[in-house]
Structure formats: C-alpha cells, structure tokens
C-alpha cells in the first residue's frame, strides 16, 4: 500500500509538470501578442518581446567623443584597443568591455559598454491610440521628429461588429425559444418534419446556402446593410439554437406547465412569464456561444457587408491591416488585441455557461 501511494505522488508530480509545460506553451502566443502591443515600434523592430525579461546585454556605461582626423586607411586606437573603423562600428570587445562607434566617421561618439543584467522597458500606449482612431495623428519618431500617420480605424469598426453581433445573438434566441416552446408543448401539422429539418441543418456548412442567398439579397438590394448580415447570422444560428433550447424547454416539468394552463394562462403568457425565466441557463449558454462566434466571424460579414466601406466589421479591418501593414507589428498586435478584448471578457466572466453550451450541442453548420 505504501509503495502505491508513493507511486501516486511521483505520478502526480509528472502530471503537474507536464500540465504546466502544456499550459506554458498554450499561453505563450497570447502573452507575446499582449506584450508586443505595448512596446514601441522601435523596440519591436530591434528585439523580440521576450527581451522585456531580465537578460544579459551590452549596456552603455560611458561615452566619449570619437577621435578625429584619423587616417581612413589605418586602424584606429581607442582606449588602448586597435581596430578598423568598420570593426568599431560593429563593436570591439576587450576585457569585458565593448567599444562601439556611433554616428559617422568624422563626427561620432564612442560608447563604452558592459555586459549587465537589463530589461527592455520601452513601453507605450500609443499603438492603441493609433489603431483605434481613424483620424490623422502625429507619431513621435525615435529621433524626435513628428510623422503624420493615418489611424487604423479599429474603433468605428468595433461599433459595426457590435451592431452586427448583438441582434445576431438575441434574435436567434428569441425566434428559437418560441419555436422550441411550440415543438415541446404544442401540437401542429408539420411538427415532425420541421424538427427533422432542424437536426439535419445542424451540420450543413453555411457556405452551402450562401450563393443563392447572396443573389436574393442582391435582388432585394439589402447586400451591404446590417439587415443582410443579421438575416444570415440569425438563420445560420437557428438550427443549433432551436435544438439546444428544445432539449432544455421540453425537459421542464409538465406539472408546472399544466398548472399555468389551468390558471388560465395563454401559451404566450406561459412562454414569456414562465418558460423564458426558467430557461435562462440554456439561453445564456447559447447566447455566449453565438455571441463569440458572431463577434469573431469573418466570412459571413465579408460576404454580406463587403471587405471595405463604412460598415465593415473588425475582423475585416484587421485582415486588411495584415495586408497593408504586414510589418508594422506594433499596430497589428494592438489591433488584434482589441478585437480579442470583448470575447475574452465574455469568455472569462461566463466560462461556465460557455462550456455548458458546448456540451449541450457541439455541432454547428
């Protein structure tokens, strides 16, 4: 028995170490993004984000004017070290120190550097300012000059995303809850076939329905308006919403419902006063699931709102930035983090419901 428990202890140590390793790997990419989004453009270009951690690097301890009037073809001697100008430009090491020539040949400075523990703390919030607003703004360069830069307009596209996401979350719930109630507590012709359709559509990829919808919407002249995206998102979300809510609402206690009918409550009153409040956990599960999905969606908005224009959503804007500012990591990381902010808040505050939603029906078309 003793050896069994010791085995258990070592195995739990192995378990925890492997788990810690996995968690480290999993969180590293996000941390890299978050850290980078707060670093200055110069800092990002010069060093990886992990240089914010303590590390050994050459640090300037003193400086002196560079010798002038030296022979361009001969090695130069500074502080007893002899090397060519090019070597000094790259930095010459001698007994723990490094001499580095900054500036040009005739008017330069020699830095005396030493290996020291240091942290790169060039942080800024300017990246966010530049990314959120769409106006022209002045960016201070490293050399002190100001540069006129066009903002990246993520803020307004966030409003678009919200206007797309909020109705696209609430409407499927509303419509599906009514339908789920009918499926559970009412008898009507076509009930079975409709429910079969709901289950069948659960796995149909939304791409399959997209082409004809797009043509219809073009004829109705609603492409490029919120209406088109809502209709698409609501419809594509309905099978899962109906299926999840049906599973929940049909399990509500029969006696409670019958008591309400006997008291003279109509179906509408029973639904709004009794069923909806009782179904809050199921509604919340689906709401979070759908909200995160719609907020992060790119394809549906891209097709129905277009890749550019006033109403484009954040994911479209960010994709655009990847194309036009592919090397400007200070903007890209800040932009990406802004798009992640709302879903992450929703996720961490309501993780439990989110997981419940996933467990209840893990398929989506």
């Amino acid at each position, binding site marked *: 028995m003793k050896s069994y428990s010791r085995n258990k202890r070592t195995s*739990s140590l192995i378990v*925890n170490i492997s*788990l*810690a390793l*996995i*968690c480290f790997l999993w*969180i*590293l*990419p*996000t941390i890299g*993004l978050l850290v980078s989004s707060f670093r200055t453009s110069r800092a990002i270009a010069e*060093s990886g984000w992990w240089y914010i951690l303590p590390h050994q690097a050459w640090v300037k301890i003193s400086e002196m004017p560079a010798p002038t009037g030296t022979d361009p073809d001969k090695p130069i001697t500074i502080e007893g070290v002899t090397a060519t100008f090019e070597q000094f430009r790259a930095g010459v090491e001698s007994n723990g120190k490094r001499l580095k020539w900054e500036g040009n040949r005739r008017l330069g400075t020699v830095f005396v550097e030493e290996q020291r523990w240091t942290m790169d703390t060039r942080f800024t919030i300017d990246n966010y300012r530049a990314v959120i607003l769409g106006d022209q703004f002045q960016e201070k360069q490293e050399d002190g000059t100001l540069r006129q830069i066009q903002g990246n307009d993520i803020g*307004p596209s966030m*409003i*678009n995303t919200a*206007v797309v996401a909020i*109705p696209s979350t*609430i409407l499927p719930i509303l419509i599906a809850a*009514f*339908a789920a*109630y*009918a499926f559970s507590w*009412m008898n009507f012709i*076509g009930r079975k076939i*409709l429910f*079969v359709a709901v289950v069948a*559509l659960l*796995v149909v*990829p939304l*791409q*399959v329905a997209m*082409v*004809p919808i797009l043509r219809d919407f073009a004829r109705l002249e*609603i492409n*490029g*308006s*919120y*209406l088109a995206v809502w*209709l698409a998102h609501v419809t594509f979300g309905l099978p899962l919403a109906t299926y999840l809510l049906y599973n929940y609402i049909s399990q509500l206690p029969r006696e409670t419902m019958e008591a309400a009918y006997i008291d003279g409550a*109509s*179906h509408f009153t029973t*639904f709004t006063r009794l069923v909806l409040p009782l179904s809050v956990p199921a509604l919340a599960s689906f709401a979070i699931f759908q909200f995160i999905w719609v*907020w*992060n969606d*790119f*394809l549906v908005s891209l*097709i129905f709102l277009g890749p550019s224009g*006033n109403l484009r959503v954040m*994911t479209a804007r*960010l994709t655009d930035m*990847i194309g036009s500012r592919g090397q400007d990591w200070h903007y890209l990381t800040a932009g*990406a*983090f802004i798009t*992640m902010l709302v*879903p*992450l808040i929703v996720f961490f505050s309501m*993780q439990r419901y989110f997981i419940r939603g996933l*467990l209840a029906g*893990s*398929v989506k078309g």
Partner: protein
Amino acid sequence: MSTTSSYGFQPTRFLTALIMLAIVIAALYIGFDLLRAQAVPERTDALAKFAQSIFDNATPAGKLINGIFAILLGVGGMAALFWAANGVVEELPETPKRWLLPYVFVGPMAVLLIFLYIIPTIRTVLLSFYDRDGEIFVGLQNYIDTFTVPDMWDSFRNTILWIVLGTFFCVSLGLLIATLADRSKFETVARAIVFMPMAISFVGAAVIFRFIYYYAPEGSNQIGLLNAIVTTFGRQPQAWLQYNQPWNNLWLIIVVIWMQTGFCMVIFSAALKGVPEELLEAGRIDGATEVRIFFNILLPYIWGTIVTVTTTIIIFMLKIFDLVMGMTGGQFSTEVIGTQFYRQLFANRNIGWGAAIATLLLIAVIPVMAYNLRQLAQNRK
C-alpha cells in the same frame, strides 16, 4: 381544454389586434427600408434621402446612433411582431386559434430556415450544374473542372492534410490534457488556459502566429519567436509560411490545433468525469499501470464521445477559411476548399463553380447528417 380570459369571438377586439399587427409590420418595413437605403447610395426617393441625412456613417457618433437604432429596430421589431401576431390569433374563436397559434410560435423560425437555408441549399446543388453566371446548363462540367484543375488539387490535398493532421492532434492532445487535468489540483486553471484560444477570432490568431513565424534575413534581429529559437541553436532562420511547400501547411495547422484543442479537452473532461471511480480503483488494485488503465478502461468507456468530437472537428476542418485568409491569403499553395469557394465565387465571379464546391462540402457532411437523424429516430422510439 384550456380556458382563456376572452369569451367567444369579439369582432372589435379582433379588429384592434389586426390593426396593431398592421402597424407593427408597417413600422418594421419602414425601419428596415431606412437601414436598407444606406446600402444603396443611388436611391433618391424621400425615404432614402431621409435615411442618408440622419445616418451619417462617416463619423463615430453617427455610426453609434445608427447602430443603436438598428439594434432596437431588429430586436424590438421581432419581439413586437411575435406579440402582435399572437394578439390577433388570441382573439380568434377556440378552434382556429388552436390551429393557428403554433404557427405564430414556430413560423418565423420555419420561414427563415426554409427560405434562407433549405431552399438555398437545394438551389446551390442545382446551380452547380450551371455556368459561371448561373444561366446556361453545363451538366457536370463544373465538377469535371473542379477535379482536374491543378489549383483545385492543391486545395483538396491541403484540406485532407487539415482534416487528418488537424483532427488527429486536436483530438489526441485534447484527450491527453483532459486526462492530465483530471488528475491535477490545478484543473480549473489549466483548462481555462487551454480553452482560452477558442474565444479568439481566426484573424486575431493569424496575427499572433504570423508574428511567431516572422522571418527576418539571417544576421538581423529575429523578432519572431520561432526563428529566434532556431537561430539560438545555430540554424538558419526560415520563412516558415513560404518554405518547403506543401509542408508549410503544417504551420497553419498548428494554429488551429492551438485554437481547437480546448474544445476537445472540455468535452473529454466532462466525459471522463462520468467514468465510475470503482472501475478505475478495481483496475489499480489489480495492479494495472496508469497507461493500461487509460487504454483499457478510460478509452473504451468514452469511445462514443471521442467519435462525436472527432466528427465535429472534421466538419470544422472541412470549412476552414478565415485562418488561411489571415495567415497566407491562400498563397504559397496553402489554399483549401473553404478559400477556393470564396475565390471562385468572388475573385473569379464563377457562380457555377462556387456552387459546385459548396455542393462537395454538403456531400461530405451527409454521412454525419444521416447518423444524427438515425439517432433522432431511435430516441423518439
């Protein structure tokens, strides 16, 4: 027999309810037309002019007003529609009321699903037999093209790579982490960390990983994590997303593994919680190692869940789109079926071909659909 507060049919009350419904519908129509008018700048009628004057989308404030109006209209309008339609039916005599009321409840869902999902799906299948404008019948030509153009071959190959490797690693890593977490005190934290990428958009993830894979020429500062590691070990930096095609697809698949493993883990965690403790204890007392317990007891017990999760992830991989668009835009032979669908439809403006690709997606999910429907029929019995 249910009792209601209204006794018999009262024409005036019915008429009032009918007028209410008409008002709601009219208000909805005007409201939606206001929204719609913004999408059509050429319109010059009074309503469109009014819409263009009150909704100035160029400024954030105008955008906010427009947004709030749109949200209230969309959500409030739908709720009002349910309420008003119910009001009309409630005023009917008992028998027609009992007939009609279910359709008030289920109607909007049925209409949307039929007109925006079921019929379009059928039309897509039909369109796949037509030419690029969807007008001339071309038989199987789109499918023949789809299977013979080398570009498409790349996409099929890549999608299969995604399905096989992506699914394998998502499911097995998810299972591994769920099993580890199940035995650890830090389960909640570990699960939250691995699960978190699910809340991140594909485009956001694309930025994260493009930065990790970032390539700077040899000798310059490697600010991308992967190349920094590689050069630390004295190797040459690589342009991971371009280099060594088609295996560069693996770097994209890693991103999806990072994002979707959490999903598998959460489902497996719940399934593992359902394995009876006595079964595990019995195995341990018999002297089975933890590895054997995993393969001989746990794995068979949660096999059903593994199958469900695997099919879900396969369907997911089949439709992958955003991530490829964000990572490479489909360049460097990383195109998949999802991106080809978009490319044929929009860049090439080839409706027939786009529909053919969509139809292939549909065919691919039909076995799963059939399985789900059979389950449904069995549960009904």
